[in-house]
């Protein structure tokens, strides 16, 4: 049975799409048949980050409305045969996403895939709720910054009240904290919330820390999930995160500031 995982945050621009792309890529690289779905109707971007924007003919909304079937809309990644993407519509509005349609599509995908990753839009409205509604687990993407942490807390509230699991009183959605754009040197100076701070405030288990890295922008320029790039710190951090998700024990990396020579001399 497929596992459905939503990548969500509340606040916009914190790295959901970056995370969804690399998480899906990492799962696929580890031999799992994985599909990543863009729920950001009207503002699709996942196709660009995955580098398949020119191959989108039909999208998620076409499938929901019956204008196309899944086979026509699923795009197979050129680099990994286990990886597929389902693009969002660029033209429709978010009301085109209806719960029955989403459920039907997810059920159909579940017959074929090991993991279904849902890239949520920002906000706390229909699109975001639809993306999390059928989730078994959630990656809550948070930046070390006050408004992002607060919004993550609100999203945690939604996961425990607005999802199918919450409504049907089953086991709650399993929550994982993903801290992205972490700048260890600024944390060291007391200018930015630390991992421990965020952990203390939100109280959900930390699955991974992704450093602030220029490699992310480079990867998005070329349409490659950063997890597929060699020698990219952020990519390595995503692969570690995937390994932990699959049950391996991996210490957190990229969480310590690189010490300058002078600082070392003075024992700082």
């Amino acid at each position, binding site marked *: 049975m497929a596992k459905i995982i939503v990548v969500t945050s509340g606040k916009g621009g914190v790295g959901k799409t970056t995370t969804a792309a690399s998480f899906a890529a990492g799962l696929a690289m580890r031999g799992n048949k994985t599909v990543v779905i863009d729920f950001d109707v009207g503002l699709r971007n996942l196709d660009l980050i995955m580098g398949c924007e020119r191959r989108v003919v039909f999208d998620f909304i076409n499938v929901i409305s019956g204008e196309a079937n899944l086979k026509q809309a699923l795009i197979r990644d050129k680099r990994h045969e286990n990886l597929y993407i389902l693009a969002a519509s660029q033209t429709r509005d978010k009301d085109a996403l209806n719960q029955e349609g989403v459920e039907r599509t997810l059920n159909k995908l579940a017959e074929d895939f090991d993991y279904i990753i849902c890239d949520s839009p920002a906000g706390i409205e229909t699109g975001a709720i639809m993306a999390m509604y059928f989730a078994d687990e959630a990656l809550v993407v948070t930046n070390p910054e006050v408004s992002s942490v*607060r919004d993550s807390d609100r999203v945690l509230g939604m996961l425990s009240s607005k999802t199918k699991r919450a409504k049907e009183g089953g086991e709650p959605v399993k929550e994982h904290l993903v801290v992205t754009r972490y700048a260890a040197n600024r944390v060291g*100076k007391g200018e930015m919330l630390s991992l421990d701070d965020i952990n203390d*405030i939100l109280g959900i288990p930390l699955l991974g820390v992704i450093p602030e890295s220029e490699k992310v922008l480079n990867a998005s320029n070329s349409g490659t999930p950063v997890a597929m790039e060699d020698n990219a710190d952020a990519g390595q951090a995503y692969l570690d995160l995937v390994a932990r998700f699959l049950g391996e024990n991996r210490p957190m990396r990229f969480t310590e500031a690189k010490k300058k020579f002078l600082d070392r001399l003075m024992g700082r």
Partner: protein
Amino acid sequence: MGWLDVFRSNDKKTSAQTAKERLQVVVAHRRGGGGDHPAYFPQLQQDLLAVLRKYVQVGDDAVQMEIEREGDLEVLELNITLPEDSRH
């Protein structure tokens, strides 16, 4: 600790510490008290909102409540934010 630390003032809070403290308050508040608030808190908040809305249009977060404890004294601190144009 390096020898330079002697010259740094130690009692100054970093901005991250301030951020953490502020966040802990808002999160505890959203979570209905985090164990610290009485059970009637969320309902009281809703009722106060309803009363307010008879007179002014306010958002869901217009009523902020905290319990302050000092020794065995408990103070209910109520903070109501009115919209800017509520005076006419």
